[in-house]
């Protein structure tokens, strides 16, 4: 008989169904992980926000605030991008979008600068290593359970690059989490340390009315303890956002894959039934044809 037999269809359907079960399970796992990651990102916000406020006030109120991480480098020769991706794939265009955003930022920079990369996540490392970029460092296998110590390590690393002059500006590139369907690749400047304008304005307003702020023991000591912490908390926040985005992206991708598999099973089942019908019709035709022939022969 021409075309596929019923058995071939059965085999295809079973295989698509197996794949569907895997994608469905992955979707559910990532949905659960997404919820946790979101909560974690949420609960890191007060810390970062508060550090930012204290820092802005400190900078606004003391002209003599000096620290290597606040110092602007001049001229700017080397710009480092800390690219935060996932370690794993199977999450749609998630990793590609981040890397594309980073590359866009590099090519849009019209100053005569060299770009360096610090890869966080295996996908970023593999991409930049393969293409021969100046990979200044990599942090991989961070796992699904991020903790602050990992961010501290990365923060220390980039602070060192900056202080040694291996980087004159540092940007974070990560996925900003909106919801499971939407993650926005974001580029954020982290070094030299700057505070967002609205917070700076607020702090300057505050500074006018509070000249009697006490620093214990003194401004410099506090900056030494505050600035690295602020940097680390930004890295931590980016990592948490990226993790939530990764789970969201994977959940969506796997949801789509599951739907596609279901559709495919429906189509294949229909075609299998058609094929079965056709073969039954054929058999009946053959039998009745044979009977007819016998009848004629008998007469």
């Amino acid at each position, binding site marked *: 008989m021409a075309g596929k037999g019923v058995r071939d269809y059965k085999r295809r359907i079973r295989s698509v169904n197996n794949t569907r079960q895997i994608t469905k399970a992955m979707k559910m796992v990532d949905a659960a992980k997404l919820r946790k990651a979101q909560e974690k990102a949420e609960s890191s916000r007060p*810390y970062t926000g508060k550090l930012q406020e204290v820092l802005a006030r400190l900078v606004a109120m003391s002209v003599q605030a000096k620290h290597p991480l606040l110092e602007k480098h001049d001229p700017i020769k080397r710009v480092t991008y800390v690219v935060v991706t996932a370690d794993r794939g199977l999450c749609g265009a998630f990793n590609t979008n981040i890397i594309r955003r980073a590359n866009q930022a590099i090519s849009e920079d019209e100053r005569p600068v060299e770009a360096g990369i610090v890869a966080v996540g295996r996908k970023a490392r593999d991409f930049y290593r393969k293409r021969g970029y100046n990979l200044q460092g990599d942090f991989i296998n961070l796992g699904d359970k991020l903790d602050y110590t990992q961010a501290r390590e990365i923060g220390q690393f980039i602070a060192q690059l900056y202080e040694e002059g291996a980087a004159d500006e540092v940007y974070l590139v990560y996925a900003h989490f909106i919801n499971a369907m939407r993650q926005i690749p974001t580029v954020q400047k982290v070094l030299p340390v700057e505070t967002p304008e609205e917070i700076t304005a607020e702090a300057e307003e505050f500074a006018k009315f509070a000249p009697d702020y*006490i*620093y*214990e*023991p003194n401004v410099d000591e*506090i900056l030494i*303890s505050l600035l690295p912490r602020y940097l680390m908390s930004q890295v931590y926040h980016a990592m948490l956002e990226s993790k939530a985005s990764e789970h969201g992206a994977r959940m969506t991708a796997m949801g789509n894959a599951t739907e596609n598999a279901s559709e495919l099973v429906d189509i294949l089942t229909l075609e299998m039934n058609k094929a079965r019908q056709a073969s039954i019709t054929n058999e009946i035709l053959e039998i009745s044809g044979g009977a007819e022939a016998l009848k004629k022969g008998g007469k």
Partner: protein
Amino acid sequence: MADNTFLLEVVTPERIALSEEVQFLVVPAMEGELGILRSHAPIVAGLKIGVLRYTMPNGEIHYMALSGGLMEVIDNEAKVLAETAEHGREVDLLRAKAAKERAERRLAERQDQISYVRAQMALLRAIARIRASELDRH
């Protein structure tokens, strides 16, 4: 009653560890302990690894282990920002003691500068946790 209290918040990257009206607060500042009462002048202080102590309006005293950070007081709101903060009663004493021994062993071995400093910090953290735990016991 409430006119001699102020808000104390202890915030870490992981959570808001504490948010309570308190009467008296003592933090491990860089140059010694620092006591805060209501109507304190605005202050920013660097904190060392150590034990934070606060008195509730009903006179109860509680202890927390901090791993260094900052405190800011303005308008009767004290915010302590620390990398980790643990209530004394939450401390896993066995683990803290094990960490202390481990750190002491590391210090005994002769090592390069960085590992030495690290071990020292680990030891201080373990001691702070053990002290907070013992003080918070009653």
